[in-house]
């Protein structure tokens, strides 16, 4: 079988698997968030944290819940890393405490569902930080994202109320009823396929060539499951999903992509169910699928293109890719991980072809919405839908409305603020970083010498880093030594602002929408459940993102890829 065919077949299998679970999972999640009952375990948690899960919250209260919970998580994770050196035995595996800037960066990264890692897991984090700190945040940061998305969906679904549900109930349910059970199943599958799951110490192993290598054990499979399911992406090991303990074979590779995509896609069904019109969910799904399929096809095309003798011999751009996944598996993974704010990698993104790197970057620049991070993908896409409805909706001769809610001054103000945040963070921080660096050809970033390459590729490394951080992706282009005080701090800030500022506007938007009285649908209403609208939405997303980042992309991946 040719590598191209194998890639396509893998994609088809993935597509079919996702299609199979779409409805049951989406419906289940809708029931979870609409349910009036509490599980016994949940009641214990509510009693423990002193929350009343039945109290309805207005949007400021909901937001306070999100921010307070995340702030506490940030502080705990920071402290845990700072005291690691004092922890005994296996808890620390003998690693030192993490430096303040890196501890901040890591805490921000995991609380912000980004999982940018400026550290190397097997060389710095013991079992305590990995399991009690990072893995816990992998669950709850994902649950926070879904909760905010559900609040926005309620904004559309409800009318003449200011209540958006209860944050604590949404948080706990998302964790207990969705993420935990799915992770258990996924972890078992991964273990069965060869991923490791233990609390072993560091083993010294002799290599074939005579040297020695240190190999860690750890609760890898369980963390791997939630790493993908929660679109987190923080690897147990530095090599992330390219490491055989995390991702042993081609099947687990595809299975991990499945885990990455399954919740974000299924949430569109949940959305359709909750607003009482599943077709609206399908339109959003269609938009996401169109972008996802298009990007995957483009990625495969650039990676399979044979330029030069070395690539021809390998059958494509094999540098930096794992032999066991091939170009097909790696392209599918790279596209899924960058379109979903996951950031797990099974290949070196720096080794993607120039244009392939650009596609990965553009995928993140879309704002992680196709299908995006768990929850964040849905709310990001809905905000884009509001923008598209506003521009195009005018063309049917009515004040724009989406799902019966008018898109007026207040709504457009909030949506506009939302779409301003990430470009500001990405371009602003990248510009300052580049201004600090010297001209090409020299060792770059005189301040700390962290960019490895010169020219367009060097620029891409920095642009990729801030794109990844501000969009909460977490994948790295490699090549950039990000463990410097400058990058640890600025990337940490980009992550936090890129995660929580949008949530402020999304929740405010939800509050504003919920208060409205719905406008009944007539023949004069823009039909947002039709393919025409999905196409329009794709166009709006591509044009707005394209226009924002075109100059930057031209100087990075395009300059590299077109030469």
């Amino acid at each position, binding site marked *: 079988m040719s590598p191209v065919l194998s890639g396509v077949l893998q994609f088809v299998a993935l597509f079919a698997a996702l299609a199979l679970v779409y409805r049951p999972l989406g419906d289940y999640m809708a029931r979870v968030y609409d349910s009036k009952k509490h599980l016994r375990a949940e009641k214990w948690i509510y009693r423990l944290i002193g929350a009343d899960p039945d109290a309805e919250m207005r949007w400021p209260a909901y937001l306070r819940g999100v921010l307070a919970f995340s702030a506490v998580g940030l502080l705990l994770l920071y402290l845990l890393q700072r005291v690691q050196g004092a922890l005994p035995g296996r808890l620390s595996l003998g690693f030192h405490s993490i430096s303040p800037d890196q501890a901040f960066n890591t805490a921000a990264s995991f609380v912000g569902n980004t999982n940018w890692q400026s550290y190397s897991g097997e060389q710095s984090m013991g079992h305590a930080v990995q399991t009690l700190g990072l893995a816990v945040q992998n669950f709850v940061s994902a649950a926070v994202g879904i909760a905010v998305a559900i609040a926005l969906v309620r904004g559309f679904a409800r009318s003449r109320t200011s209540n958006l549900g209860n944050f604590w109930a949404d948080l706990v349910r998302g964790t207990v009823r969705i993420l935990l059970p799915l992770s258990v199943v996924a972890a078992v599958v991964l273990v069965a396929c060869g991923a490791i799951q233990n609390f072993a110490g560091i083993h010294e192993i002799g290599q074939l060539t005579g040297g020695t290598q240190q190999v860690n054990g750890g609760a890898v499979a369980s963390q791997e499951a939630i790493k993908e399911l929660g679109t987190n992406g923080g690897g147990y090991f530095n090599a992330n999903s390219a490491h055989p303990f995390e991702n042993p074979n081609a099947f687990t590779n595809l299975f991990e992509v499945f885990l990455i995509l399954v919740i974000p896609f299924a949430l569109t069904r949940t959305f359709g169910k909750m607003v009482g019109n599943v077709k609206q969910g399908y339109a959003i799904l269609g938009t996401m699928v169109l972008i996802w399929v298009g990007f995957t096809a483009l990625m495969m095309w650039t990676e399979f293109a044979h330029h030069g003798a070395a690539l021809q011999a390998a059958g494509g751009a094999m540098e930096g890719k794992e032999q066991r996944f091939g170009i097909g598996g790696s392209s599918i993974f790279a596209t899924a991980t960058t379109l979903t704010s996951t950031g797990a990698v099974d290949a070196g993104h720096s080794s993607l072809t120039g244009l392939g790197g650009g596609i990965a970057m553009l995928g993140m620049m879309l704002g992680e919405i196709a299908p995006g991070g768990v929850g964040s993908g849905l709310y990001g896409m809905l905000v884009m839908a509001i923008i598209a409805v506003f521009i195009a909706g005018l*063309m049917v001769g009515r004040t724009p409305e989406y799902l019966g809610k008018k898109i007026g001054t207040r709504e457009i103000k909030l949506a506009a603020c939302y779409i301003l945040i990430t470009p500001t963070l990405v371009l602003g921080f990248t510009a300052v970083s580049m201004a600090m660096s010297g*001209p090409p050809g020299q060792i770059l970033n005189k301040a700390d010498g962290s960019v490895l390459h010169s020219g*367009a590729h060097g620029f891409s490394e920095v642009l990729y880093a801030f794109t990844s951080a501000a969009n909460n992706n977490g994948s790295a282009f490699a090549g950039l030594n990000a463990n410097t005080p400058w990058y640890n701090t600025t990337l940490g800030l980009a992550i936090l602002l890129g995660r929580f500022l949008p949530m402020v506007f999304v929740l405010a938007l939800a509050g504003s929408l919920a208060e409205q009285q719905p406008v009944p649908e007539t023949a*004069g209403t823009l039909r947002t459940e039709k393919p025409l609208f999905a196409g*329009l939405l794709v166009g709006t997303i591509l044009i*707005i993102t394209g226009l924002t980042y075109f*100059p930057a992309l031209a100087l990075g991946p395009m300059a590299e890829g*077109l030469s």
Partner: protein
Amino acid sequence: MSTTTPVRTAPEGDEKQPAHESSGRVSGGLFDPAQLVKSLPDAFRKLDPRVMVKSPVMFVVEIGSVLTTILAFKKPGDWFGWTITAWLWLTVVFANLAEAVAEGRGKAQADTLRKAKTDTVARRLTKDGAEESVPGAELRVGDLVVCEAGDIIPGDGDVVEGVASVDESAITGESAPVIRESGGDRCAVTGGTKVLSDRIVIKITTKPGETFIDRMINLVEGAARQKTPNEIALNILLASLTIVFLLAVVTLQPFAIYSGAEQTMIVLTALLVCLIPTTIGALLSAIGIAGMDRLVQRNVLAMSGRAVEAAGDVSTLLLDKTGTITYGNRRASEFVPVKGARQEELAEAAQLSSLADETPEGRSVVALATEKYGLAERSDTDLTGAEWVPFTAQTRMSGVDVDGRKVRKGATGSVIAWVEERGGTVAPDARSLNDGISQAGGTPLLVAVEDEKGPRVLGVIHLKDVVKEGMRERFDELRAMGIKTVMITGDNPLTAKAIAEEAGVDDFLAEATPEDKMALIKREQAGGKLVAMTGDGTNDAPALAQADVGVAMNTGTSAAKEAGNMVDLDSNPTKLIEIVEIGKQLLITRGALTTFSIANDVAKYFAIIPAMFAVAYPGLDKLNIMSLHSPQSAILSAVIFNALIIIALVPLALKGVRYRPMSADSMLRRNLLVYGLGGLVSPFIGIKIIDMLLSLIPGIR
């Protein structure tokens, strides 16, 4: 080009068609290129930054122009810098020109109105009944003034005493005088209009300076124009896009320096101006002004732009039956003979009996006889020796005695009594015919004759409300647009149902009282719908105020005019449908030009980015898919295109995009194709052509 003078339909002019030409539609007023030249001084006056700041997008362009001017002065030998500077200033001027042209059309109308508002001297009545002369500007609410033939009415008010004919052409343009009388629904008079006959006493209801004519002047001049909610929202979106592009351009310089391709400020400014949505930013206010203007052209005054926008969103139309759906009066539609009588005989008798009948019903009988039954035209003067029997409330019949024949037509009971009185026979089916017509919602008139064959009933004239032509199609179109029509009538449900079915409205409200109307509006609004209605009476006022779009007839009371948010000077209720279309067209024009403007940017990137960076990264020259002549000509072409497209689109902004009623789906598909795809493709062609022209100029590299 279409109408500048709207079709004026006098309130009584029920013979005319409603202002509905399938070709004219809501396409707007005339656009004359000479107006561009005339408005040029205004366009320059608007360069004042305090004015410019109201349009954030164009304000950024102005700042950019100032910046490049300073830079050009620093390097006076740089032709490129000067050319870019010139075109940037032109971009700003063109934007101002669009707005100035839109406003200019209102100004002309305002001048005409001002002439009507010459300072009048009012004859105020003092408490003891004496008259004193005071300037019109000193009148207070509640003052009583006297106006006699030849006087200009000094202010808005209600007639409290007397009746007069008034020339309101200063406001409505309609030269036929109207009657104004105390009490009832025709008591309102407007300042600036002229009393033609008789004497009336008017109670002033409006302060000087806030009169109808003052408000009208402000409205047509655009002085009172406030941004509408949707316009504000669009401005916010445009401002945020401007910020995004500002960010993209400002951060580009460090990237460029790193890449070894530092850019001049002039090039960066040119890029910024090309990217920010200048096309829609420049035309946005012109679109709004032109939308109001299109209403003014149709003699409708919208008291707020908000109401015009709401008109586009309306999902329920309340239409008064009489005057809107049907002609004002009942008309003969059919002659139904009784058994044993001939059709021609009945028609001839009906015609004869009505020759001297000057009521609309009577005239319609004569018309029907000639038009449908092919009888020769006759007039009452043709018959010598005829004795006309006029209609009285006692006899309830009218007719004629001529050449020994007596013909009568009238209310069924009276005519039957007349025949029986004379010993004649009443055909057995006369009553059943009569009842059939009543039940179908019509009014039966019995026709009887007494001649050599004796007195007998010939048959029945079927009088009915005649639905105006084209109404059914109109309502079908409205339905396709998602608008529900509700007919309001005082008729009984049976009659109402028959007319509603014939006209094709979706629903009707029979035996409607003002309270019923109000309740209906509230019910619709509770379901989230926007309601539009027309009204003229004082008892319509609460409903007009409650409706989202309330169009008051100019012939109506001041209370109605105060309560509505639009006034139709022609007092033609059918116009409500046009108002809805104008509202929709306004929104579509905005959306279409926004889409066009944003789609334009793609081509500009392909022109400018390779021009900026192909030196540093030769591979980027592959993006120069238009294969433009040189970096300078590429950038210049994009800037020139960006400026010229504004002027090119001014007529579209003023006229509004073509609008035909259709479903939202087909409308979106069509507009996306024209303005989305068109906006994507056209600048590639335009920039290429400009570049080819530029490359012909010697000295341009």
